[in-house]
């Protein structure tokens, strides 16, 4: 479980996040949605420690990640797995080395055990026998899958996904969504997905937080999102023609 309390973040005079609070539950896919430039990625960076909030706290199972000791912060960071927008695979390493990387740094497993673990994770994400391929040889969807395998290889308790569907065709995007949800259930991770894709919202949005211009305007799930009374959220949901057609 991850709890955020009154998160504020500004860059010089530009206030990006205003008092955002919320709870992200274990074993569920928690979505942070909103239009581009509303502060979703900044919030995610505050959550994983890439940015320090100006005010407020991030608590991982009641452990204060924002103001904790360096030892605690390192300990929590090593429980985090993250899928980046572009995959962020290391160009100079092949698939196996990329997925094994966190194990090389963070675990004391033997080489055989590491390879076994890597193969297990690659199997979980539906990729087998591509261990020796370089990132440049992979498609966008495969890169995301390898990124997910790397994020879970160290038995991460917290899984963060930044725009996992960006740049993917709708079919592959849904497969990635379903994969994230499946892993969340199987590994019982606290999963937070930042997205602006309504397909993801409908597919895996068990808990949704809507952010608009740096403020949290709504919280709910994919079953009650259409019953909201927020104008900005309505505009976001029904921004494309397909959604307008099914508008109640």
């Amino acid at each position, binding site marked *: 479980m991850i709890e955020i309390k009154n998160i504020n973040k500004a860059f010089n005079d530009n206030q990006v996040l205003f008092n955002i609070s919320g709870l992200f539950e274990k074993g569920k896919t928690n979505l942070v949605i909103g239009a581009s430039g509303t502060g979703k990625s900044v919030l995610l960076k505050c959550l994983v420690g890439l940015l320090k909030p100006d005010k407020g706290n991030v608590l991982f199972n009641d452990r204060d990640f924002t103001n904790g000791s*360096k030892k605690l*912060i*390192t300990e929590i*960071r090593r429980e985090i797995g993250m899928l980046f927008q572009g995959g962020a695979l290391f*160009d100079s390493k092949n698939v196996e080395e990329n997925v094994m990387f966190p194990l090389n*740094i*963070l675990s004391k497993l033997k080489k055989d055990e590491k390879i076994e673990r890597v193969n297990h994770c690659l199997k979980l994400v539906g990729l087998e026998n591509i261990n020796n391929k370089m990132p440049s040889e992979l498609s966008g969807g495969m890169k995301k899958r390898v990124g997910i395998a790397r994020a879970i290889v160290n038995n991460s308790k917290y899984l963060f996904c930044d725009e996992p569907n960006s740049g993917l065709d709708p079919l592959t995007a849904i497969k990635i969504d379903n994969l994230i949800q499946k892993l969340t259930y199987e590994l019982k991770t606290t999963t937070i997905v930042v997205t602006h894709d309504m397909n993801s919202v409908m597919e895996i949005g068990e808990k949704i937080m809507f952010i608009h211009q740096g403020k949290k305007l709504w919280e709910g799930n994919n079953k009650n999102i259409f019953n909201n009374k927020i104008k900005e959220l309505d505009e976001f949901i029904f921004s494309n023609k397909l959604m307008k057609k099914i508008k109640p």
Partner: protein
Amino acid sequence: MKNFGKYIIFISTLFLRRESFKTYFNLSVKECIKIGYESLFIVAIVSIFMGAVTTLQTAFNLVGPLIPDYVISLVVRDMTLLELSPTIIAIVFAGKVGSNIAGELGTMRITEQIDALEVMGINSSSYLVLPKIIASILMYPILVVMSAFLAILGGYIAGTISEVIAGTEYIYGLRYEFNPFNIPFALIKSYVFAFLVASISSFQGYYTEGGALEVGKSSTQAVTKSCIAILIADYVLAQILL
């Protein structure tokens, strides 16, 4: 001044939250191959021609019945050891290795690979930069020694082929009134230049912001700033040590 302060803080972060010795050892060996071994060809070519041209130009300018021929190789020797090998090769090193370091780190920054390391709880600056600095400090002095040897050899070949100096005269000049301190002086310079090139280029690359265009700018700035730092350090070291 703000950038200089940021650079000092950057250097100090290299020694915080380090990974295991084995990790750094393996990374440093890889970097040694990339930085040292892969620079051999360009350093060799530049050094041989540098020595050859120095010999011919010295001979051209020192024509006279009162000046013995061996002075040519004496000049080549001292110029090579004191200035050409440590400093000119450092400029070449900045162009080849410095731009490569800045480009590599800049690309890693804009493709979120550095963020990925940070999220895993790894001190990315230490993990990525320290092995490059260690490798540069280990490999550059070796390149300088090799460069000095090849430059003097290049001078010998050019001098004897063009018949401006006899082989025996050239060897005699190399040994004549040799000041042994020139060698440690060249090595001290090479350690300092290696550190400057690796650290400045890493700093430029590590703090790249934007896209492909900015990666190119970082590489260019890495070379420019490294060259300026080399020349300033060259002057300061000459002032202090000679």
